[in-house]
Structures are given as C-alpha cells and as structure tokens.
C-alpha cells in the first residue's frame, strides 16, 4: 500500500513535470520574434552564457552577499542531484562513484546555503521580494535537503531498497521501498519540489544566451569603425 501510494505520487509528479515542460515549449514557440538584432558571435556568446550559468557573475555584480548563498545553493544542489544518479543508473558508472565524497560534502552545505539565502533576503535586503511560490519552494527544498542530510548523518535508510524502489518506477515492477519516516519525508519533499520546480531553470539559460547575443550585437547596432 505504501509503495503503491508513493509510486502513484512519483508518476503524478513526473506527469506534472512533463506537462509543465511541454506547455512552456508550446507557449515559447507561440511567442514569436520580438525584434531583429544583428547576430553576434555564437561561439563567444555560448562561452559567455556558460560562464553566466556556472558562476552567476551578474548576481555577483548586483548583490555579492546574496551571490554567496545563491551560488553555493545552486552548486551544491547540482552536485547532490548528480550524486543521486547512483539510485537511477545500474550499474553505477565510475564517474558517479568518484564524485560521491564531493556529493556528501555538498549535501552538508545545501541546507545551510538555503538558510543563508533566506536570512540575507529577509534581513539585509532593503527591498526584498517574496512570493508564496518562493516560500513553498524554499520550504520544500529545505525539508528535502535537511532530511537528506539526516539520512546520511543520523538515520541511515536501506539504500539498496531505496534504489530498488526508484528502478521499479522505470521498470513498472514492485520491488519494495524503505518505510522509515525520514526517508518518506525526504521523498515527499523531493516530489513536492519537483512538482513546483521553477520554470527559470529552463528559461534562464535561453534568456541569458539571448541577452549575451544582444550585448555582443549592441556594439554594431549603431556603431561602426568610422563613427
């Protein structure tokens, strides 16, 4: 019964996530072209965009204090997510095994980076902006990361059974699942987070690329060598 409930929840979350991605792609495709801008160098733009995504330099320029928390959060979240590949891939590749220690470290940092972000935004920022979506997202991320940390440090679960549950989702088999509260809380928080994962993870890289293209093209928009 427990496994069935969580399997249903997992499939529902996957369906919601897929629908949201498909809907976004549909809306974006319908958007059309806003303005003609001369094309800049694509390779240079790609490189600048990669740097923008990896290091968040625009946020560093805008708010160095917030950048510390945001960069740490995004980096540790990415590493923790990659570490979870061990539950999805069978056999587990060498590179995933190799990054496990880094993943553990990232797991310890993740919840504290969230607490740092919330603290900075609510105490040091003169004009802070918080929506209910922000709040929900942060809450689920905090629960998921804190419970994940607890699962590693305090209340170890049956990792093999956890993997069996995940693999069972892809093979549509009933292979069992851990039933300890901390694991279930972790899974529920992760499901909730995935269901409401912000659309900016898809859109921001595209907009950053476009922004870099515009910036690169700005120089030639009304300028040339003779002016």
């Amino acid at each position, binding site marked *: 019964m427990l496994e069935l409930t969580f399997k249903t929840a997992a499939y529902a979350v996957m369906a919601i996530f897929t*629908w949201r991605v498909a*809907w*976004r792609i549909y*809306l*974006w495709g*319908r*958007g059309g*072209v*806003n*303005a*003609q*801008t001369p094309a800049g160098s694509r390779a240079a733009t790609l490189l600048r965009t990669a740097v*923008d995504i990896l290091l*968040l330099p*625009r*946020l560093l320029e*805008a*708010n160095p204090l*917030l950048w510390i928390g*945001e960069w740490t959060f995004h980096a540790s979240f990415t590493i923790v997510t990659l570490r979870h590949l061990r539950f999805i891939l069978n056999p587990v590749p060498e590179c995933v095994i190799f990054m496990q220690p880094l993943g553990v470290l990232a797991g310890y940092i993740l919840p504290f980076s969230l607490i740092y972000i919330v603290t900075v*935004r609510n105490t040091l*920022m*003169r*004009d*802070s*902006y*918080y*929506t209910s*979506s*922000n709040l929900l997202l942060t809450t689920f991320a905090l629960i998921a990361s804190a419970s994940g940390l607890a699962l590693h440090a305090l209340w170890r679960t049956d990792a093999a059974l956890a993997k069996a549950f995940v693999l069972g989702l892809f093979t549509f088999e009933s292979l069992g699942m851990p039933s300890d509260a901390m694991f279930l809380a972790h899974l529920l928080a992760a499901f909730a987070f995935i269901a409401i994962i*912000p*659309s*900016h993870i*898809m*859109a*921001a890289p*595209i*907009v*950053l690329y*476009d*922004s*870099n293209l*515009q910036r690169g093209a*700005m*120089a030639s*928009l*009304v*300028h*040339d060598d*003779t*002016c």
Partner: protein
Amino acid sequence: MQEIDACTACGECLKHCPVQEVTGNPAISPPEKIRMFREFLRATEGLKAKFLGSQSEIDQKLLEDFTRAVYECTTCGACGEACPVGIFSQRLWPMLRREMVRRGLGPMEPQRGMTKNTIDTGNVYGQPPEARYAPWFPTEVHVSERAKVGYYAGCTGAYEANPMVRGDALVLGAIGEPFTMLAPQDEVCCGFPLFITGQHDLLEGLVKRLVEGYRAKGVQTLVCSCPCCVNIMARDWPLLYGSPLPFKIRHISQHVLSAIKGGKLTIKGNLDEKLIYHDPCYLSRGVGVIEEPRQILMSIPGVELVEFTRNRQQSRCCGSGGAARKAFHDNAIAMGRLTIDEAIDKSADRLMLGCPACYAKVNESMKDHDSKVVITDVMELLARHVA
C-alpha cells in the same frame, strides 16, 4: 514568454525601479508585473481555462491593477540591466502592452488617440504637419534635395522640444556636409510611441513610407535627434520593413563627434561651467551610445563634466519614458525633480539632456519646483560654440 519564465523573483531589480521609488507601489515592481502576468495567462489560457471551455473568473481589480502597472512603467530598462538572468525588460514591457491592447485592455486613456492622430496628422500629438519644422528650423541652414546624410527631427523634438532640434540643425549646418530631410508632411512618426504603447497596427506602413522616402533621397546615413527613434529604427525597422535598411542609423551625437574628430567642426569659445549629463535610457541602455555626448561636451574648452551617482548604463530614469509622462504625469514630475535635485546636489551649473521627451518633461518638472538648474540639450549648447 521565455523572459516571463526566466524571472527568478530574486528582487534585485526593485532597488532600480524609478517608478517604485516615487510611488512605493509594490504592484509596479518588475517581479510583481511578471507574477501578475503569469496569473493572467493562467486564468485566460491555463489548463483549466482550456479544458473547461470557458475563461476562468478573473478578478477585475487584479486586472485593472495589472494593466495600470504595465503602463505606469517608463520602460527605462534599469531593472533589466540589473537582472541576474539578463531579462531585456526594455522590450518585455512593450510586448506585455501589446498583449493588453490585443485583449482590449490597453492602452491608457491619454494614449488612445495616438493611432487616430497619426493617421490624421502623421504624429501622435495631432499637431499639424505644416508646423513640424517652421517654428524652429533655422532659415540660414540649407537642406539639400538629395544627400548621403539624412536628418530625422522626430515628433517630440519638432513639437515639444524645439531648442533641441534647432540645435541639431545649426550644428549640422556648421559641419557643412550636405544633408537632406523629408518634407514636413512626409516626416511622419517613426512608430516608437505606438510601439511602446502596444498599438502596432500602423507600424509597418509608417516604416515603409519613411524608408522609401529616405531611399528616394539617396540617404546612406540617417541621423536622428531622439534616442527613442534611434532605438526603434535600429532594432525594429529592419523587421518591419522586411529586409535590412538601405541606410545606417546614427544618433546625432555620433555623427557630430565624428565631424569633430574629422576636423569638419571647429569648437570656439569657452564655457567655464560644471556640466552634468543625464544618460537617456533608450540611448545608453537601448543602443549603447554613452561616451559620444560626453566627448562632445568635453570638447568645449573650460567644461568640467560631473556624473550622476547612477550613470551610463545604470542611469536613473528622469521619468519621461515609456509614453507614461502624460498618462502618469505626477510620477514623471516626481522623477524629473529627483534628477534636478541630484544635479544641484552635485553642484552642476547646467543639466545636460539628450532626449526630447526628457527635455520637455524635466523642464516641466522644474516649473513649480523649489530648486532650479539650467537645463540644456547637448546640441543646443554645442550650437553656441561652433563656427
């Protein structure tokens, strides 16, 4: 749409919004406008709306607040400049306005006559074409029938900021290079006010008419007085025209600086004054013309140039942009006065402007204001110092 989705709601833009600064209204803030638009889309085109076969109930108050917030924005783009994900807000807000017009929710009352005025008179102000040049164009400056350089005065300059465009004409005359202009009834609106208010129906026709007009006159470089004109011409005209333009677009400051550097324009006299230059939003953030006006001012002997705290691409809007200066008069006056006050705080003798909308509104802001400063356009000043 991608930009709507890219917003992380980090709130970094809040400290840069000039309208938020003077109104304190959270609904006008950039992330709040984006959030409301998402709500609006969800209510009109979301899953529930689509599958239930009818539009969901949309809170009318929310709709009114949202429409007002979208149009209250000056589209200065300061929020986008600060945005960690690079949202090009100077384009995003006009596109939202286009959506509001498409749905019959915009534009604002004072902006509704723009389309009809343009059809009737060729300009959004409804002013007679015969009065476009006559009141200000210096009779001693010769305009050629055909020339490689064309000058586009622009509606706001021609009808609301005469000293500015008069300065342009005098400086162009002093350069000595032949330039041409369209006849007053042919120099119609560049389309920017219609574009910025979301009223796009006439754009293609206006653009084609102007481009063909300048092409027939042999123009290879079109020099514009107004940053907004430069912006739409450089960014949108090729798309609206359907092919690359047969001429380059340049702001007057670029053309004039080139003439100074090339020895075609001699600066005379002295000006022992401290000048402060305000970067027009559509010139600095819009097309990256930043140093040219400064270099022109510094070419006048004796000038000391000081800067606003927020300058160049970070410049603070003076309140005149986005076609909001008439629809939201009080906001524009308040923002204009902040610009004046800072110029005075910096001990400037003269506030230099480079945009006709800024020129008109900031001068108006000063009328009943306790603090006064001399306000001059860059070309208006230069015209007094050229041979």
